[in-house]
């Protein structure tokens, strides 16, 4: 049975169900227990499992370090980074420890941690609470970066992430928290490392994640009226990437537009673009286009913030330019 749930509630439900399902799962982070999380995502867990929900000091390194160490001992911690930007103060733990455990132990130990990180811009909180951190973590083999876009994906992918034996950074876009969608009541998994073809089309492939999918869909609708068929792909797991799905789509359409929140320089759009031109240049009919935020810090004032991020018009312009190349 399914009913409508918000993205936030879907994540909360996944956490409750996994706490129920597996006694080795516990949550920790700043204000995640008693208060139920700064964004309310972990509500109700402490009340049911007071020993398995831990409020911590403002110590991101300790939070992730503790997660890593306990994971080696067979626990499954789900840590919260109140804002993904704070990954900078626990980067060592993610990069040098979490991502290396399996490698170092030659497969004898793994590091089944999930780090839930609240990402993205749009809530007028300026540059320390609005950054898109995906690329900061995307060249760390050993880490998995997941970016769900819908309540259905949020629940299923969080359950998969918790059950997965590798360290997963689970990105939650703060502007999607109130997004509602159909979510089954029972626990279910969504396969990681598998991109979703959200819409079929023959002329342009758009790759986008999280909030950027809205722009992609709006542009696709507009372009449909012009007779241009847009295929939309949500990689869902950004790293390791489901290259196959993207390659097959672009081999069919011959045109690729990547829509990405966050600076253009070295963003995941750059990686996808490079990958496609490297692997299937022969199939391309037009240059690859990236639609991204500007290469600036996110500013506070709404006028400033909104100017920095991509809009549907930018996506349309990019699509038209690849069509007319």
């Amino acid at each position: 049975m399914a009913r409508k749930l918000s993205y936030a509630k879907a994540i909360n439900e996944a956490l409750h169900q996994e706490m129920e399902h597996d006694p080795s799962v516990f949550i920790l982070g700043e204000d995640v227990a008693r208060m139920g999380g700064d964004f309310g995502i972990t509500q109700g867990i402490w009340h049911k499992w007071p020993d398995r929900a831990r409020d911590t000091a403002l110590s991101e390194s300790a939070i992730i370090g503790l997660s890593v160490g306990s994971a080696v001992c067979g626990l499954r911690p789900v840590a919260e980074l109140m804002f993904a930007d704070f990954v900078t103060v626990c980067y060592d733990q993610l990069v040098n420890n979490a991502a290396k455990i399996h490698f170092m132990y030659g497969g004898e130990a793994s590091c089944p941690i999930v780090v839930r990180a609240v990402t993205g811009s749009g809530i007028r909180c300026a540059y320390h609470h609005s950054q898109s951190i995906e690329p900061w973590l995307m060249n760390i083999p050993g880490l998995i970066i997941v970016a769900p876009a819908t309540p259905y994906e949020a629940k299923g992918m969080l359950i998969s992430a918790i059950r997965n034996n590798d360290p997963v950074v689970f990105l939650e876009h703060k502007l999607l928290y109130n997004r509602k969608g159909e979510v089954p009541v029972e626990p279910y998994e969504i396969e990681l490392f598998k991109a979703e073809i959200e819409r079929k089309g023959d002329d342009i492939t758009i790759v986008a994640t999280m909030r950027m999918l809205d722009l992609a869909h709006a542009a696709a609708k507009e372009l449909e009226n012009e007779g241009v068929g847009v295929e939309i792909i949500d990689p869902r797991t950004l790293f390791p990437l489901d290259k196959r799905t993207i390659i097959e789509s672009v081999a069919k359409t011959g045109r690729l537009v990547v829509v990405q929140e966050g600076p253009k320089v070295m963003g995941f759009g750059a990686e996808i673009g490079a990958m496609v031109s490297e692997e299937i240049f022969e199939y391309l009919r037009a240059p690859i286009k990236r639609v991204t935020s500007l290469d600036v810090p996110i500013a506070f004032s709404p006028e400033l913030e909104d100017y920095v991020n991509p809009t549907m018009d930018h996506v349309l312009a990019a699509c038209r330019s690849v069509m007319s190349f």
Partner: protein
Amino acid sequence: MALTKKRLLELYCDMVSIRKFEEAVENYSKNGTIPGFIHLSIGQEAAQAGVVGALKKTDYKFPDHRGHGAICLCGTEKKRVMAEIFGKVDGINGGRGGSMHINDLSCRNMGFNGIQGSTVVTALGTAFASTYKKTDAVTAVFMGDGTLGEGTCHESMNMAATWKLPIIYCLLNNQYAISTHYTESHPQKQLATWADGYEVPNEVVDGNDIEAVVEAVERAAERARKGEGPTLLEFMTYRWQGHFSGDPAAYRPDGELEAWQQKCPINRSRKQLMEIHGCSGAELDELDARADAEIAEAVQFALDSPWPDPKNALKHVYATVQVEDWK
């Protein structure tokens, strides 16, 4: 409570074994057989052998980058540790880690790290797991005087003290963080007092006195097992070589090394064994010769072991994903 003769003899052998191990590593590093750079712990044998010797096999040990000795004593076969340092396929980690990243889960050597202060917070996790699973395992994390400059030490001690986690912070104060003397980078006269701010019990221990080390660790472990939380032990010691093999250590004042060599932990135990426990010099020489033979065998094993298959570089990156080999 003094250690028994039997126990002291065991620890003496451990220390000698570390010394011989490190000397062999130094030779093969200097002649270019061992790739990369290595950090030796000659002069610090008592602190390493004492900490590991005072703990149970089920306790979690986080040796640091200057930790060959502690690693060998956790229970991994010395020849496989040696082969790892040589980068060979029979190394305990298949050549993936080398000198600075030697781990063996089977004996709870968790020593993965080349980053100062990194394991100090990771150790929270194994300690937390002990309380979560209600086992009596304690966690000992090795750190140095230099490590204490890292912010993670603050986060770790604060959380461990608040949650009463079973951790022993083993601070081997060997005086120098590479070239910088600890008095030039820390305001405390004695680094152990740093734990006072977290209301964490702390002791300053003669790190070259194996008995003192063992007894201090046993006290701390007992507190931890009783649920009374962490302890910081500062072992005063000295590394005889430079920071890495080949560092001439020109930053040390004249005569400092010689003064510390007078306090050699091995000679000290040897003297104790002879004077208090009635061991003969020939008896101890025989033990030294056995250690020599054991290390020579370990070196031969490492030399004979083949290089790993280059394709092994792609193994064990993920538990759930096979990494692509596009070469």
